[in-house]
Structures are given as C-alpha cells and as structure tokens.
C-alpha cells in the first residue's frame, strides 16, 4: 500500500469511529421500546419512514441523484411482501422481508440505467414516470393487487416463528427498530468506505471524478440498487406491520413527503433521514389532530418556508448544533478521565 492510500485509509477509519453521541442516539432509540409503550404505533411508522429516508439519502445526499420515484421501490416491495404473506408462499417474515428487498433491488438495478443519462429534470421525470407506471399497473391488475380497495386478507406469521404481531404494535416496533438498526449499520459501513468517498466525489463533480479514474456509471448503478433495496425493506416492513397494502404506497405524495423528511433532517449525513423522520412524524401527528383534513397545507407551507429560508442556512444550523453537541459529548468524556487522573495522582505520591 502506498503511503497516500494508507493515510486515506487511516482518515476514513478515524471518521468511521462511533462517537458518543451516536451511541447515545441508539440507546435512546432502543430504550423507547420499554419507555414509550403507548406510542409504539406511531414509532413503528417513524422507524419505517426513517429507513425509507435513509434510502433516499444514499442516492440524494451522497450521490446527488434527484429522485421523485423512490416510492416505486417502496410500493413494489410492499406489494410483494403482502402477496407472499397472503398466499403463504414465504411464511417467515424476516425471509420475506429480505426477498422483498431483493425484488426492489432488482427493479432498482434495471431502472438505474435510466437515471444515468440526462439532466436533473430528465432524472426527475424518469423516476417519477417509473413510479407512476407501476401505480397504473397496480391499479390495472386489481385482481392481484386489490386495486383501489388495497390488498386485503394479509396475515403475517410470527417473526422467526416465535414473536407474534400484536395490535398495540409492540412486536412490530421492536422488529422495525432492529431492521432499521441493521440497515443503518450496512449504510454506515458503505458511506465510510472508499466506495462512499467515491460517491461524494461523483456528487461534487462527475466529470472530474471520471477523469481521476472513478467508474462513475458503475458506482451510480451500485448505489441506486442498494438504495432501492433499503426502500424495498421499508415498504415490506410497512406491509408486514399493518397487514395491509394500498395503492398509495406508490403515490407521488409519498415520494414528495420523503423529500421533505430528508430536507428537515438534512441531506448527506446518515442521521438526517432518521431525525427528519422523527420530527416529521410527530409534527404530522400534531397538525393532523389540529386540522385533520388540511394538514397538507401546513406541510406545503413548511416546504416553501424551508426553501425560502435556505437549505444551506439550515445546514449551517445543523452543523452548529452538531458541533455544540459534539463538544458537550467530548467534554463529558474528557471530564471522567480527568477525574480518574486526579483521583490517581494523590495515590501515586
């Protein structure tokens, strides 16, 4: 290994180290299983949305592909998971989940070649077109998908044959959170690898990264497929936890909401989608109790406001908040060894 490569490897390793804040985040997340049992239904939706947002962040935040069609993968896998459960083809939910993800990934791989070409607008139109086409297909073959009434009569078997889904969503939430965590670990490994670094280079300037020898198209195809896999897992989770799947999993609103989630949380770092999902879901819940019918208006207003305030300004706030939290975290960690050293010093004397 050349010194430069070793140097970069060192840097990546250092950046990929788990910070105290991250560990705290996940401890809080898992603690909510026991601490907030009455909120589990909405938390389940949040975990699914977070995973979905994570999938979009991989292509939007890291590779710079604007997509309005992420719902295509979400919906396809959702229907797949529903159908295999309904007809008893794959009974075990975890296995069905992985298969659904793979189906979505296959779709992602095929459609990835469509987004390689053209400008932002073309990409937008193609991704949107794909998800609309799938929506039309699902509507057309209503004898399979249930059409506008949704896919009914789905019964999901117990997870791993032991943990049965209950109506309060306790099993569902634990299941979703574990899946989210596993997917997050995979995504984290990906973005802190040289592969992730090359994606950032492509986002920065595709032409130049091609010139320094990064296989731009192959990398984009790869990340698009991975992202489709995660989106598919999210869609399958939704079907499995609600035992229902309707046409709106493929709708444009779903993709648009997803963009909003990611924008709230911030693009280009993995926790953006997660934090965005939590904020979005609880805000939506809150607005919906105030004005059940017109919550869309406030969502729209929020989008407009965010853009007018400026995403870069928001990103700066994010950065500042993160830096402050990081300093806080560092201080608490430093403080303890300092205490230990102070305690050890007198004994040494």
């Amino acid at each position, binding site marked *: 290994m050349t010194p430069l490569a070793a140097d970069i490897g060192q840097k990546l390793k250092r950046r990929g180290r788990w910070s105290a804040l991250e560990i705290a985040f996940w401890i809080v997340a898992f603690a909510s299983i026991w601490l907030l049992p009455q909120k589990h239904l909405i938390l389940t939706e949040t975990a699914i949305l977070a995973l979905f947002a994570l999938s979009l962040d991989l292509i939007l935040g890291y590779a710079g592909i604007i997509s309005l069609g992420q719902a295509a993968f979400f919906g396809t896998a959702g229907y797949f998971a529903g159908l295999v459960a309904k007809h008893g083809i794959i009974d075990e939910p975890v296995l069905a989940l992985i298969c659904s993800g793979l189906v979505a990934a296959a779709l992602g791989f095929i459609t990835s070649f469509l987004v390689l070409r053209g400008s932002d607008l073309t990409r937008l139109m193609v991704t949107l077109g794909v998800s*609309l086409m799938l929506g039309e297909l699902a509507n*057309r073959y209503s004898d399979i998908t249930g059409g506008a009434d949704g896919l009914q009569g789905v019964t999901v078997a117990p997870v791993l044959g032991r943990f049965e889904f209950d109506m309060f969503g306790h099993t569902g939430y634990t299941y979703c959170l574990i899946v989210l965590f596993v997917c997050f670990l995979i995504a984290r490994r990906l973005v802190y690898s040289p592969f992730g670094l090359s994606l950032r280079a492509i986002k920065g300037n595709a032409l130049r990264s091609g010139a320094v020898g990064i296989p731009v198209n192959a990398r984009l195809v790869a990340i698009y497929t991975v992202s489709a896999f995660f989106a598919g897992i999210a869609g399958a989770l939704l079907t499995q936890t609600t035992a229902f799947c309707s046409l709106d999993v493929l709708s444009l609103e779903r993709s*648009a909401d997803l963009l909003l989630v990611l924008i709230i949380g911030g693009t280009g770092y993995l926790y953006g989608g997660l934090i965005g999902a939590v904020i979005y879901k609880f805000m939506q819940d809150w607005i919906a109790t105030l004005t059940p019918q*017109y919550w869309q208006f406030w969502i729209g207003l929020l989008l407009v406001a965010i853009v007018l305030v400026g995403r870069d300004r928001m990103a700066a706030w994010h950065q500042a908040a993160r830096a402050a939290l990081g300093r806080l975290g560092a201080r608490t960690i430093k403080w303890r060894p300092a205490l230990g050293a102070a305690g050890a010093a007198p004994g040494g004397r």
Partner: protein
Amino acid sequence: MLTILFDGVAYGMLLFVLACGLSVTLGLMNFINLAHGAFAMAGGYCTVVLVNRIGVPFALGLPLAFLVTAVLGGLFERTLYVHVYARPHLDQVLFTIGLVFMAVAATDYVMGSSQQFVRIPEALSGQFNVFGIGMGKYRLLIIVVCGVLTVALQLMLAKTRFGSRLRAAVDDQRVARGLGINVGAVFGITFAFGSGLAGLGGALGAEILGLDPTFPLKYMIYFLIVVTVGGTSSITGPFLASILLGIGDVAGKYYVPKLGAFVIYAIMIVVLIVRPQGLFARGVAR
C-alpha cells in the same frame, strides 16, 4: 376513428395552451415549476365562480380567467419565485411541490373537494356531423381558440420586439443580459402571461379534464411530459408533443382502456432515454 383523432387534437391543443407557459419558464430560467398546474386550477375555479355563481357570460368568463391568473402569476413571481431562480434544482422542486400542496388544501378548504362543472352555453353543447365524423361543438371551440392562440403566440415570438428579446434570453441568458436586455423583466412578464394561458386552459378544459382540488397533481405529469418531450427551445416542439400526447392518450384510453396512462408514461421514458434533450430540440448541449 376520425372522431378519436378529432378529440385527441382538441385534447392536445388544450394541453399545449396549459403547458406552453411552463415550457418558456423552464427554457428561460432553467426553473422547474411543478406548481404550474395550480395556476390552471385557479383559472378553472375562477370561471366556475364567475359563470355559475355571479352569472357572467361564458364568453366573458374566459378572458377574465386569463386576466386573474396572469395577475396572480405575476404577483407570485415577483414575491416568491424570484428568490428561488438561482437555487439548485432540488430546492425548486421542493418549493413548487410545497406550493402545490398548499394550493390543493386551500382549494379543498374554500371550494370543497367535489368536482366542479362550468355551465357552458346551450349553443356549445351537442355535435356537428361533418362527413360522418361526429365533432363536439365544444371541442371544436377549443380547437379554434387554441389554434388562434398558438398562431398568435408564434407570431408574437417571431415578429415582435418582445418576442426577439425573449428568444435571445432563452438562447443565452448571459449574452442577452450583456446586450442590455432586462432578462428579469422579460421573465416576469412571460411568467405572468404563461400563468394566464394556463388559467385560460384550465377554464376551457374544466369540461374535458374535470376540475377538482387534486387537479395540479393529476395533470402535473402531463405538463412535464409535454415540456420534456417537446424540448424547451421553441414552441413548435411542445406544440407537436402535446398534439401527439393528446392523440396518444385519447386513442390509448379508447383502444386499451385498462392500461390507462401506462402507455403514455412508457413512451415518455423511452423518448427521454433516447433523446434526453427532447424529441424536437435542436440538440444543443448546454
């Protein structure tokens, strides 16, 4: 068969009037305006209120719809849109989708979620029968109005001073600025005019396309297809694209009704893959 062609042409003409404003804004400012359909909806509802509730004659309702939406468009352009032109595409998409959501919910709140119909005069309902082809009178009116508008637009673009300024700005904004053309003003006027046309289209099309609060979402994709397939460098491109789309959609719904809009989306994707710049673009890489 010919009736389908006729209906398709009428539909396509309508789409063109609805979408040509969008094509200019996209070509001129490279601005992705997903909220274009909201202006069309505004025009439609404006006509509904004027004609059905206040009792303004239909023939007067149409120009009024144009005026109201043009003013509305101009207002929005000056107050909100100007801040977003220089932003990346993602911001533009978010911003305009936000506007669409607001428009949908607000219309739902004010006008109710049910479908609205414009009361059209007796003289315009019914059919002509020419050489065995059934032609709806209303559709004929649409073809005539939209045809006249198209010719007028083309003349305006080709012959007037404003038209040449606009074309110069579309071709190369920076050079146009350098030559002393006030691109911002040209754009503002064009935006207002385009919104007005969308409003007029919405008013005319309320009968054919249906008018309810989800209109901007439902037809957004159609407008975008017209623009992306037609290219943004001229108005002939979008015009041909919308006629093709109109005929294709009507024929598709007639011959393979169950596949719905699937055919249209499939064609669009294929066209975009083969010619990302649009079917009728001059192939200038920018």
